[in-house]
């Protein structure tokens, strides 16, 4: 038997920091507690997604391949950039970005579209974005299975960097999660958020060095790149996949920091909005 007390009455101010930490720990532990359920929802989403499609799982394979084809065509035949092996260069950037946008925009709608679940079941509401991200991650991995061998063929030593790659992926996952729960929560309060997110992502795409490298950005504007968390993730992926070189500690540090802040703030904000959201759905 579990006993819980729901108390929204104000706590003493001095304990606020501790309380927030407790809140975080509580949130995370409840997510861990519901891990099976989250996995189930994710699996259900994956199933639902592919059951509804004629092409099924192949769409996840086709998607990156088509992207690569288009990118190659545009950047080798139409715009001639002076980057050797540009298709792979672009692909190493765009592929994680595709995951990022897909996961973030899907997750932002996850609570709104599945509010019934929260109406009936006692779930931490972060579970819904989380499950969505997992489902999207699965699609990403399917595509990855096609793309990754290309990089290995091009640059065999890349395979040695796989553990680091997994770390980067995990950090990206955390970064997306943090952002997603905030957007998902805000989207319940105001449906504008979802629409706004599309615009933001569009803008974000172009400030992120995907079709270009950071070196190509004029010095005056380079600070923008450095402020953009996705720059580090893109550099990380590109270094590991395209250049086949180990990441600098600075980059890893930046990624760690951004994903940490994202998760921390995300959980805090989402927790703050908790009651508002439950009433809102």
């Amino acid at each position, binding site marked *: *038997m*579990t*006993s*819980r*007390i*729901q*108390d*929204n*009455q104000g706590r003493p101010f001095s304990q606020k920091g501790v309380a927030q930490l407790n809140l975080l720990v509580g949130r995370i532990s409840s997510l861990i507690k519901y891990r*099976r*359920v989250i996995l*189930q*929802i994710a699996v*259900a*989403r994956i*199933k*639902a997604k592919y*059951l*509804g499609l004629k092409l099924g799982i192949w769409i996840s394979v086709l998607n990156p391949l088509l992207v690569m084809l288009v990118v190659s065509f545009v950047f080798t035949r139409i715009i001639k950039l002076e980057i050797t092996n540009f298709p792979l260069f672009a692909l190493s950037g765009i592929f994680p970005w595709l995951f990022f946008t897909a996961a973030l925009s899907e997750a932002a709608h996850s609570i709104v579209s599945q509010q*019934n*679940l*929260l*109406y*009936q*079941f*006692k*779930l931490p509401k972060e579970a819904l974005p989380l499950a969505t991200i997992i489902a999207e991650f699965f699609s990403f991995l399917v595509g990855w299975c096609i793309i990754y061998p290309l990089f290995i063929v091009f640059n065999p030593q890349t395979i040695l960097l796989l553990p680091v790659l997994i770390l980067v992926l995990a950090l990206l996952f955390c970064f997306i999660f943090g952002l997603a729960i905030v957007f998902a929560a805000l989207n319940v309060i105001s449906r504008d958020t979802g629409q706004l997110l599309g615009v933001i992502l569009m803008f974000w795409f172009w400030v992120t060095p995907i079709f270009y490298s950071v070196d190509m950005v004029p010095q005056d504007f380079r600070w923008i790149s450095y402020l953009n968390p996705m720059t580090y993730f893109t550099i990380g992926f590109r270094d590991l996949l395209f250049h086949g070189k180990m990441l600098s500690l600075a980059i890893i540090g930046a990624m760690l920091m951004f994903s940490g802040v994202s998760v921390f703030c995300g959980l805090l904000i989402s927790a703050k909005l*908790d*009651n508002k959201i*439950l*009433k809102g759905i």
Partner: protein
Amino acid sequence: MAVVALKDVWLMHKIPFNIKGEVFLETFWAVRNVSFTVGKGESIGIIGENGAGKSTILRLIAGLLKPDRGQINIVGSIAGLLELGAGFQPELSGRDNIYLNASLFGLQQQQIDKKYAQIVEFANLGKFIYAPVKCYSQGMSVRLAFAIAIHMDPDILLIDDTLSVGDGHFQKKCIKKIFELKDQGKTLLFVTHDMNMLRRLCNRTIFLREGRIVRDGSAEEAVPLYTQTAGVKQGVGVLEKDQLRLVFNNGKLFLNWGDILLTPDPGMHAVFRVKDKWHNSFQADWTVEQKQENKLVARGQLYQLDSIQIWRIEVLNNYDININIEMDDSQPLEMQEGCTNLTLTNAYSHWRTYLEADKFPQITEADRYQAALLQENINRNVLCVEAKQNYDKLIPCLGFERAGDACRADCQIFNSDYLGDCRILQYRILGAQNYSRDRGSSFIYFSGKIAVNIPDARSYIAQVQDEYSISCGKLKLRWEQGRCAISYKDIELTKGEHIATSIYANNKHYHSRLAAWQLRKNAQNTLVAIGRWPGLALTQMWEIIITTEKSFLIKISVDVNEGAQIEEQYLRFIYQIAYTSYRSNYGGGNFPEKFLAYETDLLQRCIPKGEIVLQSRDEQLPDVSMEFAEEAHSFAKIFNSDMSIRKREVRIVKVEPENGTATPKGKQICFETKVTLDTDKKTCAQNSEAKSQNGHLSIYFYSGRGRLFYKKRELTKKLGFYTSVRSEGRWYDSYSYASWMLKGNKNMIEARGKWINLPLSQYWQIILNEDNSINFKIIMRVESKMSMDRQQVNIMLLESYREWVANEKKNSFPDFQGDIDDDWQTIWASGRTHVSNADYIGVCKNRTREVGLPSIKLFMRETNSDWELNIVNSDIYHRGRILQGANKKEAVFMPGEYPYFNGQILIEDF
């Protein structure tokens, strides 16, 4: 131990109102200061109108919402069925959804594996379990969702009004399962609008209104409050008088006594059938006007029918409630059936009308709505119910009365079905013609009274009945819808139909009890009733006048409109079987103790006038005398009814002459009878039956016929020994058209009979001789000039006589022939001229079949040349062998005495 505890819980919603493009937020408290605790194993129903906060509270308990203020403590696991199919992924199959939902409810994979089969079985979806849920009908989703939720084995189960979606069979299954959970000590909270379910499932009910708890208590306390107040506010009206509280709520009337609801849902209401469709008062749109404190008028617009129902309710000083329901229809409604029902709580254990009284039986699950009908189609003006069981609270005795002067209505008393679990008193009017429409476009649907808190049913009914009765001293006459009962010293002398009339017209019987009566009490001693029958163009008027403490007068007249053809009219007096003897001016006797199985036992007929007295051995019962004057075509009969009814009846019959024309218009008096009780003249009854015996031979004579016995065995049958004359083409038999005065001694009977409708009387002398012969001599007396074309003496003998003799001729009787209507069949005729003293006709026993039957011979003595002897077979109804003396000469008789027939019967026993 409390497993759910809410303490001062408040919850606020902010709702963005968007009015003409202007959006503003308004706060709205969905739950206000709600506190309650639920113990382990309790099952709680939450009721309230839409938006009362029921679902919000369930969501608060489920932890899906956090209260803005207050605390909620929960002990144990919770599963809720708050939103149908909430956890379903439409693309996934039912099977996958079971796994998904079960894990959402917090079950582990292995646990789900274990329960999977049960869930599938309970949901009963067949192969659809493998189809995507998006293909399911709503009912199927509900079944699946419910099956999952209920198998989660939570400590606390929350259900939000979802049960009603499934079909009856599934609901039953769910309820059974819920009962199982209850038995396992699970705690149950559910929101429902189904009050029957609520009553069955929960031991506590919380009634919410606008986020607040109005009542937290038993279903009996909370449900009434809810049903009484739920509904459109303009259709609700309340009348209060001390403990009595009346709530009119959109076509239902509720009665509260203190905090007890006497009339559970749907209270008092009207149900009626128009064009084979049922409508009821609570389907209408109501507006209540209340101008006075004790009075309200409610108007209900019945859509579909384009008419208005108006209820006028008034509470009088002594907790009497006058209720008048009127229908106003611009296009006359063809009201096929109109019922006014009073639904009563099952705390009422006994019912009573002024004749019947009984206990309500227990309502079992098997009983359907109408199956528990206790009294069907009786015509009563007041119904009472009493609660005689020991209840904590005092349930007042209640009377439901209908104004008697409107139209005829049936009463029905019945139990509702098992779910409703209530008593129903109903007044029902069948047929549109029964509503009097003398007020233009409106008519009275129901008019009556509910009397609450009457001291006891019996005395109340007596009091009500007083309005329909007149009395003087010990004599009391009670009018009861076309019947009038006589009671004397509080003992009822009449039974069944009491005093009643009936009219045979247009080939149909019209009984007074089936007429619609208008009653007027002219003075303390006079009662005037005017009755109409549907489909008969006449009115009958009764005037009952008490003249002394022991006597009264009944005058009955008809007022004929066009087109009625009356053939016969009856005035019937039906008495208790405690009356044992009768007497008229034409003799008397004891009523036979045994009743005949299927037919009435006529004792005396054709009493043209005078006094008929019934007497009882019981000292308590007074003698009754009925006196009536002689009138053309009118006579009285005395008879015993058949075995099933068991009563004594005196019937005065008035036969209209058969001239084939309609009865003339206008008023005519039909009967005028004076009834006197407790006459002092202790008259010794003159026997209308006489017996005589000599040796083996005996004869028994009563009302115009003789029965012949030899060695205690009857030789005659049915009509026996009788005479019959034909005048102007019509037969007049001694047993049916004459009244007799008799004298009997050892071997002789003398009888004087007077024919009604004929100026004829006969004197019979029957002498029994030692030598097994009977001499009989019949003299007739004609009072005034008349013609006769046939004169007969008949002896109807047993069918067992199979051979006949005529002088030396001998032969067998043929079989009986033809229909009942066929003429009797003459087998041998002597012809008029050949008959001499020695000639005889007779019958022999059939030696092979019947032993002990003597042969019988009929001789004619003092021969009259006009007479002949015939051997006749009767029709197949009577099946008798008849020895007949007949005079077929047509003649006109002047007043005077004439010999009729002289004969001898010889019994020969070999």
